[in-house]
């Protein structure tokens, strides 16, 4: 634990644009009430994204002048603006700014610039799928426990103090298992499937009428992007023919495809299945093409929910953050995001929020498990899926003893990635509150 040095000097911000993650800090004593000039020869460091590596500066006039624009002349941890934020080491400054920068991304789109996922239906809820909690996942359980420890550490820290925090050892990836270290188990893999199913449910809830060509195309592209991710993470098998098959059937049964009349539920389910997982269709006659295909395939069970379907042969995924920003966040988690991004809330927002302030997901215990599953899914999307165009193979799914290997590797990589990014330092309450408030900052607010 670090506390204030005896001579009163600490790293304090001379100017800071916290949302941009940029700041100039000086090694100096606390300012006087008049906000006078900083000492002439105080060491000065510039911090900025993406590495937040301190860079020495000579001319502090640059720091002072920065406050003519988006920088603020200092950072205060009390409402009255009397107690300055202070840090014992440049590393603590760097970590504080890193977390604030990532927290800010949980509010991206609040003042424009991000279209977000397809919007929810205007008429409200039509029956969400309720995910079953993944208590059997050791990773989820471990993260839940450590979030509580993190929260306790934050509450116990005196003002202006900080403490290193350890998020545990990552589960060991396959090649290291021989030495007997812990590896992901089936329960861990089910955390990805839980998230995948919740995302399918949310995506289907937002499906527009096929007659709205523009909205339909946008939705269809995003839905197929989700399918690509599910295939890449090896989750698709679990959902289609594995233990989550019933969950998928429930999701499909509850979804709507209102404009198709006189269609039996059996055919409706198969059509939905084809839309999500069948061959990619283009053009205005998409629906007709799929219905024709449905007729050709017939009602036999041999293709539907079976291991005999062939996925699209070529897959392409762009920037994983772009993909995540197109995956809609289930409604039940919207309350942890700023008001002005709720209409475009995506898994991208959740991931940034979780990395910057993991304690926030434990505020509503009923949604903690789902939030953690989705955060792991998002991390897996970054750590495991590839961005280049590649051949996905003729995915004739036949299950053997290595069924879950791809998903197992994905969850292991996701856990490792998350541990690397979760807060390395717990700060006192007032500092954590500043990090949390960064997501609310905007350059422009519409009247």
């Amino acid at each position, binding site marked *: 634990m670090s506390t204030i040095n005896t001579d009163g000097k600490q790293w304090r911000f001379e100017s800071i*644009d*916290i*949302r941009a*993650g*940029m700041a*100039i800090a000086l090694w100096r004593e606390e300012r006087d009430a*008049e*906000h*006078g*000039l900083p000492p*002439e020869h105080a060491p000065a460091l*510039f911090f*900025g*994204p*993406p*590495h*937040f590596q301190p860079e020495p*500066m000579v*001319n*502090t*006039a*640059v720091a*002072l*002048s*920065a406050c*003519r*624009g*988006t*920088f*603020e002349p200092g*950072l205060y941890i009390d409402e009255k*603006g009397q107690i300055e934020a202070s840090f014992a080491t440049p590393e603590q400054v760097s970590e504080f700014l890193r977390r604030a*920068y*990532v927290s*800010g991304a949980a509010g*991206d789109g609040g*003042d*424009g*610039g991000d279209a977000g996922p397809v919007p929810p239906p205007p008429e409200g809820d039509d029956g969400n799928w309720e995910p079953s909690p993944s208590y059997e996942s050791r990773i989820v359980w471990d993260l839940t426990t450590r979030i509580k420890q993190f929260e306790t550490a934050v509450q116990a820290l005196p003002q202006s103090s900080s403490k290193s925090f350890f998020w545990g050892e990552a589960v060991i990836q396959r090649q290291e298992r021989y030495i007997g270290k812990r590896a992901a188990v089936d329960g861990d893999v089910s955390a990805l499937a839980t998230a995948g199913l919740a995302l399918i449910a949310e995506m289907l809830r937002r499906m527009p009428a096929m007659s709205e060509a523009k909205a339909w195309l946008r939705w269809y592209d995003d839905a197929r992007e989700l399918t690509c991710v599910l295939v890449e993470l090896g989750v698709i098998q679990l959902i289609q023919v594995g233990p989550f098959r019933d969950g998928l059937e429930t999701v499909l049964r509850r979804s709507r495809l209102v404009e198709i009349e006189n269609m039996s539920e059996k055919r409706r389910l198969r059509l939905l299945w084809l839309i999500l997982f069948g061959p990619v269709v283009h053009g205005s006659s998409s629906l007709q093409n799929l219905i024709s295909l449905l007729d050709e395939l017939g009602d036999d069970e041999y293709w539907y929910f079976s291991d005999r379907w062939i996925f699209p042969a070529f897959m392409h995924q762009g*920037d*994983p*953050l*772009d993909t995540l920003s197109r995956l809609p966040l289930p409604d039940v988690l919207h309350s942890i995001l700023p008001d002005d991004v709720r209409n475009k809330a995506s898994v991208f927002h959740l*991931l940034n929020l979780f*990395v910057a302030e993991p304690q926030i997901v434990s505020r509503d215990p009923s949604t903690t498990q789902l939030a953690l599953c989705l955060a792991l899914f998002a991390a897996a999307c*970054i*750590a495991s899926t*590839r*961005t*280049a165009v590649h051949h996905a193979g003729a995915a004739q799914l036949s299950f053997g003893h290595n069924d879950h290997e791809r998903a197992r590797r994905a969850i292991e990589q996701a856990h490792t990635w998350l541990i*690397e*990014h979760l807060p390395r330092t717990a700060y006192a309450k007032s500092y954590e509150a*500043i990090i949390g*408030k*960064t997501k609310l900052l*905007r*350059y*422009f*607010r*519409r009247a």
Partner: protein
Amino acid sequence: MKKKKRYEKKIIVAPTAVSWADRIRRLSIRLARENRSGAHYLSANCDAVYRTVDGRGPDASEAHPSAGARITFNMSSVHVPGFCEATKDRRANAYKNCYDLAAESVTSGNDKHVSARRKLVDESLPLPKGASVAETYFGAVDVNGSGVRFYGDVCLVLQRDYAGTCVVLDRNSYELVRSPVKEQVARTGKLKQDAARHAIARSWSGSWEDDLRHIVAAKALTTLPLVARRWSTGHISQAVCSDEDYIEVLKGGSFNAHDLQEARLSAHDISEDALTAARLASRRPVPRLESMLWSRRRAVAEIALRSLGVPVRIVGHHGRIKT
């Protein structure tokens, strides 16, 4: 007995009566005396500076519409979508200074008061008659670089039309309260300090129209090596704005995206983006979230700017526009 002459403190302030053109003449004579080998190149190099600032080619008499010195404002890519939204909302003051941001409560808002140090500098600024600091927007001069990176990764470049009436300072105005000027002012005695600061600020200032080319020439003559070789556009760009050192512009009134000639990104930042993308493709190693966010936010900023018709260019490290 002869009375001992009392020592009088000298106010060491540069005379303001001397025009920037005269200062260049004097500086050239002095430098030519000190460095005879480079002397005959002085006038040719000064002419190159004037042409670069004006945006004229070596043999052209007319300025190229997109070349020459411009007012630039750097801001983080995080804020660019908001700036563009404000433009779409038909806000004339889409770009905000600290007074606008505090008034609109969009910053963290725990330090809204004008600090003593800012007041000290503001009161010394040679603003045009009737102008207020709250309506002044502080930019930097750049020829074809990407501005002052400490203020943000996106460099907004104003069209030339907006420069004419601006006041230009040959350095950051906050240097009035830093060494060695601070000590220089302190030696004048408490009552005369405000006047001294004001006089110094005036001695640093000029108008964009009449003085900028001379201010840039003075900066180039004192920062670039005086050798028997011609300076290049890259050399001159570096002299105008380099690292922590820049020429400040006091622009009256705000602007929006429609007033921009272009936005510039630095080649260094773009190389970071390329590294992030290359590592993402193979996942060896998986890039850090902050790197991906940084690239993504710049991409989002570029989309927002281009949707309003603002070209976005990448600038090489020698200050030349590459794409």
